[in-house]
């Protein structure tokens, strides 16, 4: 058994309290933020130094054991579900900020540093780290890099890849490489752009050089209520057409509002069918000028109520409701799927109408929360897993929504990644030649397919409870299961 041989080598590297193999120790690692999938690893290691990570990867490579690096396990696409019988490398104890240079506005961090901690660490110098996924108080920078995470403010500032200047990583064969540096401009191919969002397939980030931004002088956060979801969608188009570039534009529909209200009492309007959150930010004079224009736009857009956050506390309350929405849906339904797709933002209203139609056709409630500014939809598909066939039905609906995104010229993922959940749809979004290229690149970097095997690229048996049927590429004979 390759794992037993690996285990005896790992035992020389780790003390027993950081090498977990007992059932009660490894069971809690079976799942991430998408509990429909589970995978039982053979063991979990908890390294405390980068050297231990490198040595662990080398040992896995020597013994042909697949591994999965994990931070806080908050993936919503099953990206951090363990490879069955593989090794989990828990990076949450690698949580040091190695270097911080306020003058050059960079911070070098270990992968287990929590997203929000970076901004807290640099706040005293008036700086912050821009990407702000809703799970910011929990998720790790390593995971953000692996999934190129976004957040409500990526409309203006871009995704994680736009904020990573340099990376030191260990490749799946144990070689340590450095990508990028400390400057935004580099020579040659954008290797950081390739690594960020590779879902752990290209190895593990050990040191991440982050770009920090000066905190905007002022924020002005607006909350507009609408009678219909499409009216809110139209308001987004009006703001975009006006040339304003807010820091964030978010929409929640009635069900999502209900969930958020139950969870955090954000005080959202009780009778609105949709809430549109817009945030202006920047120098005081600029925001003051933009505020007048935005107010007029919102007035003209048919909003039934417009509120402006009067202070920072109220601003945070507006956002807290939005950022709790995913988990809060747990109050409305025992089980749900958080879907993540993108449509061109000019077609938002059309996409929402179509989702509504699908929801009725399937007889399944769907709550909608989305990054309206960049067309990133997050339908929350509610079901009761105890009812036979409910999960399968919900997954079919989720699949139809993804197909809708593809048809409209969008994408099957905006920021959650493909993970386990959407592997089957990769082949619908890309031509076979594109997918073959992806496989070729992966095979060049990880010929043994050890790093997070089975995620994103549909070439290995997934530890799924639910079956999506044969993958389209399988049907075409392009790939086969191991």
């Amino acid at each position: 058994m390759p794992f037993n041989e690996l285990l005896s080598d790992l035992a020389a590297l780790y003390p027993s309290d950081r090498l977990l193999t007992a059932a009660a120790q490894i069971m809690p690692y079976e799942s991430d933020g998408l509990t429909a999938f589970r995978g039982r690893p053979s063991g979990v290691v908890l390294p405390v130094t980068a050297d231990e990570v490198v040595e662990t990867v080398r040992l896995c490579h020597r013994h042909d054991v697949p591994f999965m690096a994990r931070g806080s396990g908050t993936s919503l696409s099953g990206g951090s579900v363990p490879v069955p019988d593989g090794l989990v490398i828990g990076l949450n104890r690698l949580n040091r900020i190695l270097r911080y240079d306020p003058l050059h506005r960079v911070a070098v961090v270990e992968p287990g540093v929590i997203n929000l901690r970076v901004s807290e660490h640099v706040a005293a110098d008036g700086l912050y780290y821009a990407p702000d996924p809703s799970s910011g108080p929990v998720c790790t920078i390593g995971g953000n890099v692996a999934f190129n995470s976004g957040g409500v403010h990526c409309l203006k500032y871009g995704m994680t890849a736009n904020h990573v200047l340099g990376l030191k990583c260990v490749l799946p064969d144990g070689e340590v490489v450095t990508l990028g540096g400390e400057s935004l401009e580099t020579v040659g191919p954008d290797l950081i752009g390739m690594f960020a969002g590779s879902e752990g397939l290209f190895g593990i980030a050990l040191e991440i050089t982050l770009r920090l931004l000066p905190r905007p002088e002022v924020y002005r956060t607006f909350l507009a209520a609408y009678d219909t979801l499409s009216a809110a969608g139209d308001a987004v188009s009006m703001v975009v057409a006006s040339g304003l570039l807010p820091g964030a534009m978010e929409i929640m529909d009635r069900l999502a509002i209900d969930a958020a209200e139950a969870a955090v009492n954000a005080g959202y309007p009780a009778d609105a069918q949709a809430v549109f959150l817009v945030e202006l930010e920047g120098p005081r004079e600029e925001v003051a000028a933009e505020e007048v224009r935005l107010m007029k736009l919102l007035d003209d857009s048919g909003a039934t109520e417009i509120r402006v956050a009067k202070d920072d506390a109220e601003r945070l309350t507006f956002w807290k409701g939005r950022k709790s929405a995913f988990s809060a849906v747990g109050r409305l339904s025992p089980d749900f799927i958080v879907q993540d797709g993108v449509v061109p933002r000019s077609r938002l209203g059309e996409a929402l109408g179509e989702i509504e139609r699908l929801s009725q056709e399937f007889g399944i409630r769907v709550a909608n929360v989305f990054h309206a500014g960049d067309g990133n939809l997050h339908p929350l598909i509610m079901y009761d897993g105890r009812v036979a066939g409910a999960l399968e039905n919900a997954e079919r609906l989720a699949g139809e929504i993804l197909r809708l995104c593809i048809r409209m010229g969008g994408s099957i993922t905006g920021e959650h990644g493909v993970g386990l959940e959407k592997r089957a749809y990769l082949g619908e979004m890309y031509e076979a030649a594109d997918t073959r290229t992806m496989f070729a690149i992966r095979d060049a970097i990880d010929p043994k397919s050890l790093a997070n095997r089975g995620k994103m690229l549909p070439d290995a048996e997934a530890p799924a409870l639910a079956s999506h049927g044969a993958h389209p590429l399988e049907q075409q004979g392009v790939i086969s299961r191991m």
Partner: protein
Amino acid sequence: MLHEIPVERIGPAGQVMADAVGTCVHCGFCLPTCPTYDALGEEMDSPRGRIFLMKEVLEGNLPIDEAVPYIDRCLGCVGCVTSCPSGVEYGELLTPFRATAEQVRKRSPFDRLLRRFVLETLPYPRRFRLAALLGRLARPLRRLVPGRMGDMLGLLPARIPPSERLPEVFPHQGQRRARVALLVGCAQQVLAPEINWATIRVLSVNGVEVVIPRGQTCCGALAAHTGAAWQARRFARANLAAFPDDVDAILTNAAGCGSGMHEYPLWLAGQPEEDAARRFAGRCQDVSKFLDELGLQPPPALAEPLRVAYHDACHLAHAQRVRDQPRRLLRSIGNIELVEIPRGELCCGSAGTYNIEQPEIAHQLGSEKARSILWTGCQAVATGNIGCMTQLATHLELEERPLPVYHTMQLLDMAYRVEHGASNGVPGPETSEAATASATAE
């Protein structure tokens, strides 16, 4: 989270436990607010990890003895309930699970003895007082006493105050605004009787008549949270019988007791007293919440300015969601500047008998809390729970910065007594003495 817990087979608490598991979506928002995940950094010592383990045990996939070390390490602070967006009632899973585990788990003879000793002593003021006095005598020997017994001796205060019997009814001053019954707590009566005196004086000044029912016992929280369900039920039943119906509220001044009394319907689920327990729990309140809603007679300013850090007791802030009320009460006292403790949502490590059962983690959390408190530059600490007061005083002293630690009621009492003068004909100890420990003072 999907589960296959055989609800009927588990008994009356089965549905509540299954609901807690079913509500968890495994999102991980609990992780940063869990003191043990913070200290240990492993999934099985996190709320969602423990939920997963309890689910596996209840489903029959995991032997209970393999899971209990991680369940034992849970402080029961329910900080995760505050941070959970999905609304998982973690406490309603943990308490019945511990009771179930207690029936089947294997404990070492020493463990059994220590547990028996704690459960047969702490909840009974007379026995505890005797034990504490003997413990004081034994303190010089504590380095010779092995392990946890020695730790227990270390937590005893420098002085065991004399016991003074509380009156059965304490009159209100001025116009009567309310009539309440007070639970006086068990360990608190022995370690810091001045807290009860301060509480009844503050209530009295505010026109509240205080009844102290004679038949009352320990609230039972200690027993329930360590899995001794039978003992918890016995205490709950005694209190249901002892507390009168003709009062406006049943008050506590110890966060742990208040949280325990709110759990009576859970402890007595499926018992004949379940409905009575629900009504009882509905009338229970922390004294700070009651006074805040009643409206405080404006207290006079303290003689000197005092910078006070308010420490949220977990069983007040998380379990009873009482956060703003004590802060409002304290802010109403002139010359008090109230400051916040960074990462204040984290438990101080006291957590009932936790500092006896898991001394290492309790010690780590206690030191971190003491350092966070000192970081604020405060001159005193206020909180609403005797357990926290003991823990904070011990660890501030270990940091060699022994700041006074007051109960919220003690600071209010001090303010009112500035006006009335020390001898206003009110019985009870003359001064509101802050908790001090003497772990290193000798």
